[in-house]
């Protein structure tokens, strides 16, 4: 297994706490299971053999009561442990945190890096970069149905509920690439609503953030220019945004820096030239039912669009 999405391979403090809790509960439960299984086996052996060994009812009653008390004590310990860990998870919020708003849509994630200055905000989709060692607070919204944001190596999930705002706090302690996935069933393509989380060292993260504040670079070659034209005049612009161009639709992922992202279709396929071409010419065969209609581009138009999108680093 890749452990890209594993509860017990934590890469941040929150997930580490929960993983710790898991191992404690796992230990207790294994012990209880073994004890019950052994008791049941012995009981069957004895019951099968001994025709006569009559324990007085009061002895059995005492044993049961003893086991009951032991159970209760164990349970109280479990509740205690669970509540303590829950508390400490809650204290990991920080005022200087990076704030990111994630808005879920059927079946992709809209990601917005908050900043009091509007021009310094960054919008992207299906891929989140975070700085290592700094708490991140997510504001979570939904545009349609209930989804759930879950990045197991970093933190437990929380739902994105239309009409409500939820928060999720996490912190990556190791640089790396982690995978997250929508965890609440949200319809046809719930299975292909993933996201990539990249935890970068702080400088690298700042570099990424600055780069992503920029508008799309102007096309250089005529082919790229043609691609831009196709996008602006064709159906693409109705749904997608490419800042600095006429494309300003808000119902589909922002494409301003599409070329810098590692997947397409919310984690459905790798972002390579070939896959990108495949996606644009027939998105429905890759992720059936997704909201992108085949744009119906002629093959030269497609080549032009690909050439242009290439440049959107």
């Amino acid at each position: 297994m890749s452990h890209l999405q594993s509860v017990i391979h934590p890469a941040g403090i929150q997930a580490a706490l929960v993983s710790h809790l898991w191992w404690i509960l796992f230990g207790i439960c294994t012990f209880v299971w073994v004890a019950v299984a052994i008791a049941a086996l012995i009981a069957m052996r004895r019951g099968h053999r001994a025709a006569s060994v009559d324990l007085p009812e009061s002895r059995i009653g005492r044993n049961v009561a003893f086991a009951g008390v032991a159970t209760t004590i164990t349970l109280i310990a479990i509740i205690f442990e669970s509540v303590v860990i829950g508390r400490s998870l809650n204290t990991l919020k920080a005022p200087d945190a990076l704030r990111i708003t994630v808005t879920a849509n059927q079946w992709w994630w809209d990601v917005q890096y908050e900043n009091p200055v509007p021009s310094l905000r960054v919008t992207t989709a299906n891929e989140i970069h975070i700085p290592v060692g700094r708490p991140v607070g997510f504001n979570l919204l939904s545009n349609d149905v209930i989804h759930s944001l879950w990045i197991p190596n970093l933190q437990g999930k929380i739902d994105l509920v239309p009409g409500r705002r939820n928060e999720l706090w996490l912190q990556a302690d190791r640089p790396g690439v982690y995978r997250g996935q929508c965890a609440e069933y949200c319809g046809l393509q719930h299975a292909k609503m993933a996201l990539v989380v990249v935890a970068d060292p702080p400088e690298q993260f700042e570099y990424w953030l600055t780069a992503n504040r920029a508008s799309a670079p102007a096309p250089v070659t005529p082919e790229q220019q043609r691609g831009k034209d196709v996008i602006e005049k064709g159906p693409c612009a109705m749904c997608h945004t490419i800042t600095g161009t006429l494309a300003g639709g808000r119902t589909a992922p922002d494409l301003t820096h599409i070329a810098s992202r590692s997947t397409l279709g919310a984690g459905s396929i790798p972002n390579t030239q070939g896959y990108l071409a495949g996606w644009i010419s027939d998105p429905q065969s890759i992720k059936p039912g997704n909201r992108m209609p085949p744009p119906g581009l002629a093959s030269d138009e497609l080549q032009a669009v690909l050439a242009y999108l290439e440049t959107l680093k």
Partner: protein
Amino acid sequence: MMAREEKKPRLVERDTRLESDALGRERSLLDATWSNGRGLIAWMAETDHKAIGRRYIVTAFGFFALGGILAALMRIQLARPENTFLSPDLYNQIFSMHGTTMMFLFAVPVVLAMGVYLVPLMVGARSMAFPRMLAYSYWMFLFGGIFLYVMFFLNTGPDNGWFSYVPLAGPEFGYGKRADVWAQLITFTEVSGLIVATCLVCTIFKMRTPGMSLHRMPLFVWSMLITSFMVIFAMPSIIIASTCLIMDRLISTHFFNQAEGGDPLLWQHLFWFFGHPEVYIIFLPALGMMSEVISTSARRKVVGYTEMVLSMSATAFIGFGVWVHHMFSTGLPQLGQSFFTAASIMIVIPTAIQTFNWIGTIWTARRLQITVPFLYMASFFFIFIIGGLTGVMLASVPLDRQVHDTFFVVAHFHYVLIGGSTFPLLGGIFFWFPKITGRMLNRRIGQVSFWLLFVGFNLTFFPMHLLGLDGMPRRVYTYPTSMGWHNLNLLASVGAAIIFVSLLVYLVNIIVSLRHGVVAGENPWGASTLEWATTSPPPPYNFAPQLTVASSEPLWHSELAPPPIVGLAADKREVLVTYLLDAEPDHRYPMPGPSLWPLVAAVATSVMFVWSIFQAWGVVWGSIPIFLALVGWFWPTKTKERLEQGVRGRMTVSESLS
């Protein structure tokens, strides 16, 4: 009207009616009175609780097979990464159908059905209370299930999971009629479940044979009583939920529409306030069966009768206070969540007490007999316990927020549902099969089937824990190769194939034994409760004479045999109504005989239910035939006769024979 002073029953000496030839004559008269005749019409008019219980069980197993086939399709799809065996749309319908079928058309009806068949026998009654309502409930169940599958084959099967969360299932995102079909199926099963629960409560409270005070009731009867109360208190919540959902979809109410002041989470609260008790509704009757089988195998009373009863009641009671543990990741306030963690974990205690009592019972057995039913029950200690323990893990908020909606949860609930309910149920069927059919199931085949199931089950569902921990969400129609989940999934699919084989073997056993099984006799297992004190299968009137009891194991204390009952009419369907607490005789009560009206009314109700998902006015127009059917049903047919009899006093057996 006549003067009415209350007469008490009295003890008579050596009633001559209990001499064997008089008894023989009484029995043939009872046969004539209680027999429902043959042929299609008689079949449709059937009201005998045993016939209906049998139908319920067979039908529910039919749905089990359908749900299992759907599960097999899912397992084929998931066996390989990026598989295209099922389209996403079909997969979504299939997992929804699987969950809905298993919960609403298999697990709940089948455990209630065991009660329908067994409870009147166990309490020594001649019939179940309200046999016609019972028949109606069966038809509603059957028509609901047929409706669901017809719609599924018309590509209109539910596709929002077995809990149909809004807004996905709401008017805006739930296209077509799929969500309505789900909601209306729920209505069908509510109606039938509530009626069965009511009949069971009335039977248990008011029709126990004299001497069977509450503390002498078999534990299975207790479990059915408590379960029935859970049904009665829990189902109203889903009635409201599904009605509001249909209204949101059909007449634009806004219960769950956040834009107009509604709230999607209201749905979750309403659903789980029902949904959690629902899982214990499935679980408690199985515990009752466990107690009966373990006690029989161990040839002793279950340790701690009172604790067992209190534990089941406590489970039922606390079960209403834990529903939020299904909603830990919705972002509810933390303080409230801690309460639900504590409640969910505390509910372990009653189950623990029962587990320990059973182990104590087995420990002190008088030569434990390891029969096939016992094997099924004993696997509880290995399988269910795993599920229970993962339940404890899930009750912890931080951990649940990691594994909620993953295959870890899928593993949990199959371990508890199958380990805690289906295994005991299969054991129970094995155990009562001789009573129901008169023949034993084959022991060897039974063992093969059991071990296949045991191995197949663990192969299928144990790997799911690991998949969940490694991040595999539930309800995904496929997963990327790069995640590395395929080996464990393949293992699970292989396991599912073994389960399939094992159940086929079970089915073969049934088919073979129906014809060639060893003839059982009255009490092949040497059990202690009243259902074993009559022929196998029992006559339509269950007992002649009706027996009274003086202990909680009447068949194990024959030296104390209490007096049987005489004076119940044999020329009409008469039952004895007794007092709630101590089951002293209260009055004799006539039971209605077979009738086609329940079927007619069920057809009318079904038409209205189906109509109403297409047109709101269907509710109004469709109600008219229901009303007419009900009038026809309750309009007395032989009032004159009854009146005369009432005046003349009752015909006794000897009179009617002369």
